[in-house]
């Protein structure tokens, strides 16, 4: 680990103020993304995957606040950057693909114009050139008949097409970092494969780093070099993909793999994960947020959580790793 990672998130904690009390959504989250690398963040709903992404992009809900840590991107700490500085970075240096393209796109603007907007705002393209460049982007994401589709409204396009438009918008200014938040939920399996191939190919061609946020372990395995497993706002394990599946070290990771349907497993061979996520509003959250669900719990688990790091960047946060 000699090179400086493109994005280095350290010790990141985020709290939300709600009527029900303070929710400790993220607690000392650590992960990094190298240049040109594709990593996945996986976990159940409520594990803090999207909150991590929103915090990095600086688009967190006003009720949420980063209380500690840093997210260094190209030498600049995003958590301490001014809004104007973030605006400069977003779109040009880092961009994001959202979960539901139909909701994320402007319903009353033609899709070509939406791509052109980004190019004019962040790409330094003139108003005269922008429509032509937008059509080039549509070609790049392999939309058939781009000249005609540029004039379409989002409702005239299928879900897969809308997601391609989102990708075109996100990649318009050749960002260094792309955060894809569940980019294929709600799409058909065949479309999902095409969209993921597209993200992977375009990313590789531009030397872009990608953070894929997903709950689908299979998809993470197929496209990513490294996987970060989150549970209730903690990073419980980080490891290279093959290592994580062959030799999971955190009990939660092992459980998650065992619960995922796969070709060789029978229905009885799958094991669920007992219990549910702890209430993150509580004032006394156990140091290991998985300990209430864990069958390997020992008295040690009530002590502050140890983080074991390996030299290849792998990490496991557990007293009794497998």
């Amino acid at each position, binding site marked *: 680990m000699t090179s400086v990672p493109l994005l280095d998130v350290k010790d990141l904690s985020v709290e939300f103020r709600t009527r029900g009390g303070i929710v400790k959504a993220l607690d000392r989250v650590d992960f990094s993304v190298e240049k040109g690398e594709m990593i996945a963040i996986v976990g159940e*709903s409520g594990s803090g995957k999207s909150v991590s992404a929103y915090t990095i992009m600086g688009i967190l809900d006003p009720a949420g606040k980063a209380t500690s840590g840093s997210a260094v991107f190209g030498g600049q700490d995003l958590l301490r950057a001014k809004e104007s500085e973030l605006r400069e970075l977003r779109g040009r240096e880092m961009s994001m693909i959202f979960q539901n393209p139909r909701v994320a796109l402007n319903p009353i603007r033609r899709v070509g114009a939406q791509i052109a907007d980004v190019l004019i705002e962040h790409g330094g393209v003139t108003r005269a050139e922008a429509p032509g460049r937008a059509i080039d982007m549509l070609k790049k994401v*392999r939309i058939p008949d781009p000249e005609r589709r540029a004039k379409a409204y989002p409702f005239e396009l299928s879900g897969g097409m809308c997601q391609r438009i989102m990708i075109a918008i996100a990649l318009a200014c050749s960002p260094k970092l792309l955060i894809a938040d569940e980019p294929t939920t709600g799409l058909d399996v065949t479309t999902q494969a095409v969209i993921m191939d597209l993200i992977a190919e375009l990313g590789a061609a531009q030397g872009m780093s990608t953070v894929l946020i997903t709950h689908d372990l299979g998809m993470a395995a197929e496209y990513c070099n490294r996987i970060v497993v989150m549970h209730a706002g903690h990073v419980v394990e980080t490891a290279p993909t093959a290592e994580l599946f062959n030799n999971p070290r955190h009990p939660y990771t092992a459980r998650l793999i065992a619960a995922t*349907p796969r070709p060789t497993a029978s229905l009885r061979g799958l094991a669920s994960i007992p219990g549910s996520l702890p209430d993150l509003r509580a004032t006394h959250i156990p140091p290991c947020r998985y300990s209430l669900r864990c069958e390997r719990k020992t008295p040690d688990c009530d002590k502050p959580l140890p983080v074991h790091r390996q030299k290849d960047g792998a990490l496991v946060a557990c007293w009794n790793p497998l």
Partner: protein
Amino acid sequence: MTDQTPPKETPLLDVTALYKLFAVGKPAARFKRPVKEWLQAAGPSPKLHAVDNVNFTIARGETMGLVGESGCGKSTLVRLLTRLLDPTDGSIRLNGEEIGQMPAKGFGSSPYRPRVQMVFQDATDSLNPRYTAFDAIADPINRLKPMPSADLAKRVAELADLCGLPQALLSRFPHQLSGGQKARVGIARAIAVDPELLILDEPTAALDVSVQVVILQLLDDLKQRLGMSYLFVSHDLNVVRLLCDRVMVMYLGKIVEIGPADSVFRNPRHPYTQALLSAIPHFEPGAASARIRLGGEPRSPIDPSPNVCRFMGRCPKSIAQCETAMPHLRPMAPGHEASCHLAEPDADLVKVIA
């Protein structure tokens, strides 16, 4: 082909030549007469072929999987079978009795209604937010098989136990329940009136993997205990493989492949099924298969040509014949049929037919 055909008993559900065509761009009835006449002279309005000559059976105690992409007619087929929609043509027989001819409007009060029930995709959206779990489960009983309130309370408690829903949660409203608990309420409600056929529309799509496993195991248990048949609609082929005895694959209103789950997953014959299977992401070493990626857009389902294969344009293997003749389902292996000109039946099956 004698020893391979299963003994002839009446299947629980027998669907033959089922069609549902939707008229699109139909002239509005409120138009003045001259306009109406002019429109009538222009010929019949174009038809969207949502379900186009679909044939299949489901045996007692069998789980049939239904897969296909959005827009392929899965939901229309489900709505026809649950009799929420009237078919354009064809028959739906439940236990040998025709239920396809009964108008959908009157089906709700027919004696057949309790026999076909459904579990909906999104447990949150399909539960009434003002009904407690108890009300939700008791509602179909009150409507279809009314009983005295003392019995009702007992029956609801029994159903909750059956579905693994703690009885203490029965007084809660949907927003106070977790995703898995809501899924259980949805299932308990569907089985409350002892259906023979349960239609499950992506019952686990919104759940996390850890909860999904429990719900799938619950469904499998219930099927064995109550002897129901399932029609399981899903996007997730790994889930279909786990739960289903047989699978049918739908593409633009037609069944393109149907057969025992083992056979279809081991040796898919239709290029669309092959593409579907190769698109499943997986993490098991050695499970990698050749990637088939579908380009292009699906053909329009509006007045499709009867002589062109529906998969034409996206099919990586298409030949000239695909544009001149519509392929039909042909036997490929015991109980396994596919509709593709290029599909090769098993060698031993060819011998048997010859």
